[in-house]
């Protein structure tokens, strides 16, 4: 079991993002289907395109610091995804990466802190708050659980993010495209929250492989 004192290197982050890309690839149809219900049916293909290009870019010349890996990945998402999720996820990864600085190894504590900075940046960029039925409803619980530490913080973060995503079902959307539906957005799981939960699942898997 990995706890927050364990260190992560660039390779661990690389594995995280590769696992995320695989998860997105696997779940793309599902994400698009969710987006079809309360959005415009492109969230799966958007992230597929984005994460595929992240993997390609990292494969070409993988940076040697976790922060740099995340910054490169974030830039890649901004440049290839488009839509709302491109700038938001791009910002998440870039700001998290920037917060990590250029250390070659970072602790789980440092990652948790950096992720919180990244998630805050997403909230600021998109102007959304908890409960607005967006990716934040998975990101915040995830990063919260991670920061809380304990014997299995990554597993706890995954669970919290999953639950956060699920908790968007009864919410009425107040941001993003789903907000146009008003009451009709109730009863559907938010696609962005769902993909955010995948990121935590991928993270838990990647550190467990260590």
């Amino acid at each position, binding site marked *: 079991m990995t706890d927050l004192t364990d260190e992560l290197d660039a390779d661990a982050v690389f594995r995280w993002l590769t696992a995320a890309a695989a998860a997105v690839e696997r779940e793309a149809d599902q994400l*698009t*289907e969710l987006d*079809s*219900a309360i*959005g*415009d*049916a*492109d969230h*799966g*293909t*958007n992230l597929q*395109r984005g994460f595929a290009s992240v993997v390609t870019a990292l494969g070409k010349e993988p940076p040697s610091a976790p922060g740099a890996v995340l910054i490169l990945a974030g830039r890649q998402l*901004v*440049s*290839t*995804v*488009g*839509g*709302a*999720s*491109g*700038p*938001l996820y791009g910002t998440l990864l870039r700001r998290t990466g920037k917060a990590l600085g250029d250390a070659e190894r970072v602790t789980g504590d440092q990652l948790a802190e950096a992720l919180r900075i990244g998630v805050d940046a997403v909230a600021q*960029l*998109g102007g959304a708050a908890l409960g607005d039925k967006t990716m934040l409803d998975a990101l915040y619980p995830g990063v919260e659980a991670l920061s809380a530490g304990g014997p299995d913080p990554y597993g706890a973060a995954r669970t919290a993010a999953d639950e956060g995503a699920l908790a968007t079902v009864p919410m*009425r*959307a*107040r*941001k*993003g*495209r789903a*907000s*146009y*539906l*008003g009451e*009709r957005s109730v009863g559907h799981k938010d696609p962005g929250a769902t993909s955010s939960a995948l990121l935590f699942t991928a993270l838990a898997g990647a550190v467990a492989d260590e």
Partner: protein
Amino acid sequence: MKMLINVPENVVADALRGMSAAHPELTVDVENRIVVRRDAPVADKVGLVSGGGSGHEPLHGGFVGRGMLDAACPGAIFTSPVPDQMTRAAAAVDSGNGVLFIVKNYTGDVLNFDMAAELAEDEGIQVGKVLVEDDVAVTDSEFTAGRRGTGGTLFVEKIAGALADEGAPLERVEAIARQVSQSCRSFGVALAPCTTPAKGSPTFDLPAGELELGIGIHGESGRERRPMMTSGEIADFAVDAVLSDLEPDGPVLALVNGMGATPLIELYGFCAEVQRVLDERRVPVARTLVGNYVTSLDMAGASVTLCRADEEMLRLYDAPVNTPGLRWGC
């Protein structure tokens, strides 16, 4: 759902290759997804750049040319373009007089254009921005991402494009774009949903005998579903929705816009009903444009956009325009 395509992944690139073949007056960068006037940058002219998800054709690429846009950045289907496209487009059209970004109010478009503006300013390009937010179907903008940008975009691009064509400086072009944007309101209905190539099935279910009121242009379902209505009833509903928000006290420009799969003969019939309602409400119509201009792939349905127009706006609306999708006076 059958489509006239090769593979879903290449729909936008294939269309850009086609635009390139059909329109020698445009420079189409297929790889970077930018459509630019061949004579850009036009000396001493503010450059107009717009863009957004693909699937709304002729918007925006079809509105590139004299008197309208200098460049358009098409994203993937229904997905806002990425900042790199707009930055590159800005560089291609800037003659040193600055560039105006015309942005439909969707979270994705706003965020990506904002990032692009920052990058372009870093490169020393002066950038103005105007949001189009004309869809009255989206109410309570406090509890939503705000009104969506739809049909009004055409009027903003046309009128601001005409002023830019006359050599006005960025601040004036930006001001009139904002004025037009604030003078436009739209309302749309769908009789049948659209199908995106990637998904391959309709974006929502619409039972026989029902229609969606207040749809967007991305296959989103609307605010309300009702039993099917006649063309006249739809016109009453849509025009009243627009008027209750717009409250015009003078002449308006009217756009009777098809969503993509509604035959022109139906659109003209709908236009007659829209005209009837406006007559009944004593709203003088200065100009009427009928056709498929701001579409949603193969969605069946229509939208009505009205724009309060003063003398200057009318003059600029009538000014010459020469683009694939809109052309008159030259």
